[in-house]
């Protein structure tokens, strides 16, 4: 098998907090990311989903070394990203870009659109030139904005247009890999759909790989080839998109799917909601982190932390009782999805 474009292994990030109590020497530690591993192939989109505080955005920033990992390895196109010195790292960033969530906060208000788009290239040593200006115009065209907008400032645009500018900046250096960190979450639905489609078009045209970080499973389903589900700093399930939605194996994945609002009022039903909330990452529960909220939890779950293991081809899950739960859930799941399909047609 070919080496993947990106290979993340054993990635860990612990944030030390300032202690609120001076008598206690040891500072509290947030284990934001606690041993994450995944690959992304050329042209592939990996969706990374989970609730706020699960560490998914931290993963994106660690890969780009916007923050330094505590441990682990990140290899991009065969090179060790974490060992890179500042100069080669900066050079590498041409190939690794990021699109942020908030299009109001992530664009410098003092710069024109053209300056924003070309900044990554100029920081790579390019010199301003008519060709570069033409490149900015072409890039704007790629994201569906007229070239004449390039002399305007961010405040003159709507949220959707700003996000297109953010995308233009990310793809201007012709990258091979882009982290989309909740890139469509702040947008209105009609605009969100436009931007999701735009990201797909750009990927098809330029052969980019995405790490698509999001909390909306329905959105991620439309764009991701594979999906990793995170809970309190760990991946609890990872599978191909169809496999994950067809037969979610982890109780947390099942709970996340059950929580997504229905698509039609006829589908309203009494649903078993997941209990409780995400625990504090300062004091994660022992054993399986999900056990206090899990309807299937048993003694083993309270003491032993389950490892991610392969259950079916390309389908990994970190749950002691995944097989039993899958067998028990098959009947109810089947009837629920049949109901959903019926209502659809």
């Amino acid at each position, binding site marked *: 098998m070919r080496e993947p474009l990106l290979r993340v292994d054993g990635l860990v990030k612990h944030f030390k907090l300032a202690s609120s109590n001076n008598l206690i020497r040891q500072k509290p530690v947030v284990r934001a990311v606690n041993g994450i591993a995944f690959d992304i192939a050329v042209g592939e989109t990996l969706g990374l989903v989970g*609730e*706020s505080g699960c560490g998914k955005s931290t993963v994106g920033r660690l890969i780009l070394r916007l923050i330094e990992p505590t441990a682990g390895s990140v290899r991009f196109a065969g090179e060790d990203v974490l060992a890179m010195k500042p100069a080669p790292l900066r050079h590498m960033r041409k190939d690794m870009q990021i699109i942020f969530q908030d299009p109001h906060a992530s664009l410098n208000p003092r710069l024109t659109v053209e300056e924003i788009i070309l900044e990554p290239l100029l920081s790579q040593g390019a010199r301003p030139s008519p060709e570069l200006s033409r490149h900015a115009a072409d890039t704007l065209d790629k994201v569906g904005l007229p070239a004449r907008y390039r002399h305007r400032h961010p405040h003159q645009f*709507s*949220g*959707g*247009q700003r996000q297109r500018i953010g995308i233009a900046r990310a793809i201007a250096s012709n990258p091979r890999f882009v982290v989309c960190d909740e890139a469509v979450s702040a947008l*209105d*639905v*009609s*605009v*969100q*759909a*436009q931007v*999701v*489609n735009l990201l*797909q078009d750009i990927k098809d045209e330029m052969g980019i790989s995405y790490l698509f970080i999001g*909390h*909306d*499973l*329905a*959105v991620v*389903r*439309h*764009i991701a080839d594979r999906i990793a589900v995170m809970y309190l700093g760990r991946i609890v399930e990872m599978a191909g998109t*169809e496999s994950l*939605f067809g037969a979610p194996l982890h109780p947390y994945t099942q*709970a*996340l*799917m*059950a*929580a*997504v*609002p*229905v*698509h*039609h*009022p*006829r*589908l*309203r039903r009494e*649903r078993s*909601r*997941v209990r409780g*909330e*995400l625990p504090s990452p300062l004091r994660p529960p022992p054993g399986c982190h999900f056990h206090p909220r899990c309807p299937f939890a048993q003694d083993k779950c309270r003491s032993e932390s389950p490892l991610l293991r392969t259950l079916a081809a390309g389908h990994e899950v970190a749950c002691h009782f995944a097989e039993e739960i899958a067998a028990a859930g098959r009947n109810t799941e089947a009837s629920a*999805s049949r109901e*959903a*399909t019926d209502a*659809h*047609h």
Partner: protein
Amino acid sequence: MKADAPLLSIRDLVVDFAPGSGRLPAVDGVSFDIGARELVCVVGESGSGKSVSALAVMGLLPETAAVSGAISFEGRDLRALTRRQWRSVRGQQIGMIFQEPMTSLNPVFPIGRQLVETLRAHERMSLRASRDRAADLLDQVGIPSPRQRLDDYPHQLSGGMRQRVMIAIALSCSPRLLIADEPTTALDVTIQGQLLDLLNDLRETFATAILLITHNMGVVAEVADRVVVMYSGRIAEQADVFSIFDAPRHPYTEGLLASTPDLFSTERRLTTIVGSMPNPAAPPPGCLFAPRCPLALDMCARERPELRSVVGGQQSACLRAEQMAMGDKP
């Protein structure tokens, strides 16, 4: 529908923040009713005027806004209330919760004190009785160990718990109407599900009507009895929730439904509505949705259609509403 008067009735509401400027008003001729115990969703994207409409009902608009139209609650003209009279309406008869529970709770007081303050502002109660009642309320909104939580400050609670506290405060005086402005938007999907269930349950226990403002058609599908779809300050369509989802009579409603990503769909591409909301400073001459509308005809660019009854209780502001049912809908 019952023959008696609705709980809340809004007629020809216009809210203009820049009168005389030629800009489109933020809310432009909105009329709808809410019956007792009814859950009405006002749905629309940013800039549709949905939140401004809610603020108008609560009398919370800045004095600089030019407001016209009628808002009556239990037969009482809310727009004629004095400040003093408002104080007995807000909180006691109409409760409100907002999107961001962190900014609507006071960070320097424990949540128990904020509940007690609301209770004692509207009812004569001893401190002890009001603390008991506050703990009851926290219990009813699903906060574990409510007695201990009374002394917690807002920052000690998660976003979901803070929103539960807001709901407890809003319901503390058993209002007849609860206005909830995007109450679950800032929350995770599992917490959103819990809160929607909670709102539905509380509707029964407190016998309260709910005006829920949202941009999420999924939330509408989960809880609404009736739906008001707003676009650029005007009502595009209103109907019972089944008509909205089964046979929308406005292309904007249809577009909103189609562009909402579906968990069960294997389609890679999402259906979109082309273009974006009109600029309020330079609105298109006819129907405000016409530039984005797949069904638009020449006449749509000439006149701005008024909301009218199409079939049953369904109202649409589209000239082609009748033709829509004959489309490709199943």
